[in-house]
């Protein structure tokens, strides 16, 4: 039961900070006319998904994180087409999950070398970005009018091309995520030894739920101000 609660807290935490960064950092990058989709997937999504996977190696968790981030993104007041981008984020979580479930050992033993981390980063980030992009190109026309397969096919070279940069960023992000996982975050160990005594990290739930709540309150307040 405690484990389930801990997993739930981490899902809400990582999903919320991913969704929050998609909305605020993503919108800022878009305003600066930077390729925000590539940066958001290649860096932020890869860091959050990989960290969550390393800290608590639980299958299915990244799908749930994607759903949480997508739900938060749905309330993004800054950009149109929120349903599509929300579903695309959920799909990104799913693709990450599928790749890591297939390729990773339970203890990530094959990820010891930097070469392997870079390869996993490139492939995962590329696939996550490309699949999210393709899904958006299918869903947006479907929701607003009609989907034309011909339009998607003619745009595939662009999607594959943009995926290259997401892949390269992902090749750097995953080694960074592994380095970050070595830092003793208050999220990491609920129970630990210090000075020969077993101690409980009492900051875990206040930190995870507190930060998540702040993310949701800021986004919902922005959304409310925008619609009213």
């Amino acid at each position, binding site marked *: 039961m405690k484990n389930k609660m801990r997993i739930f807290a981490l899902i809400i935490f990582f999903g919320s900070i991913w969704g929050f960064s998609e909305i605020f950092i993503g919108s800022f990058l878009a305003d600066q006319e930077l390729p925000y989709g590539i940066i958001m997937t290649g860096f932020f999504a890869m860091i959050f998904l990989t960290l969550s996977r390393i800290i608590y190696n639980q299958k299915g968790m990244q799908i749930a994180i994607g759903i949480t981030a997508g739900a938060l993104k749905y309330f993004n007041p800054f*950009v149109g087409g929120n349903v599509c981008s929300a579903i695309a984020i959920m799909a990104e979580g799913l693709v990450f999950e599928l790749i890591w479930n297939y390729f990773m050992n339970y203890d990530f033993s094959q990820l010891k070398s930097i070469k392997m981390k*870079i390869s996993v980063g*490139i492939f995962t980030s590329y696939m996550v970005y490309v699949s999210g992009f393709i899904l958006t190109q299918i869903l947006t026309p479907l*929701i607003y009018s009609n989907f034309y397969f011909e339009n998607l096919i003619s745009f595939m*070279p662009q999607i594959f091309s943009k995926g290259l940069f997401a892949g390269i960023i992902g090749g750097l992000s995953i080694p960074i995520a592994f380095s970050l996982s070595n830092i003793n975050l208050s999220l990491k160990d609920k129970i630990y030894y210090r000075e020969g005594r077993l101690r409980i990290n009492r900051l875990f739930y206040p930190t995870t739920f507190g930060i998540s709540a702040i993310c949701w309150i800021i986004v919902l307040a922005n959304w409310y101000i925008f619609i009213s």
Partner: protein
Amino acid sequence: MIFSRGKIIHILAISVIILGIISTIYVNAYKEKNNSSNEIIINGNSFDISIIFSNINEIKIITDDGEKSGIPLDQLIDYSGENCPSCFKYQIIGSDGYKQTVTWQDMENGVLSLDRIAFFPHLAHPFWVRDIIEIEVKKI
């Protein structure tokens, strides 16, 4: 198994990099080929952008990305000589190969800016095709 999963992931990473490089070369070549012109093709006929803008009055529309100005897309289609504009759908094509297909009702709400971007205030941003080189008139 011939390859371990570790080797497969290296092969897959190299494969996506090669796919990305080839696609980038293709996209840049396609863009370069289409960007050199100051014209826009509507239903197979070429029109000079500056002449179009001197013949059709610009309007301003409000979008979720602020105010945008341009010539109404429905007037552009009328200008191109289409007799029954509501009988067709319209495929808007960008210089990078990006395409979106919209209805006549969508065209009545959209504008084409001087820098060749189609803005549709009622549609999602993926419909806002940039660097438009052609508008193809298609049967519904």
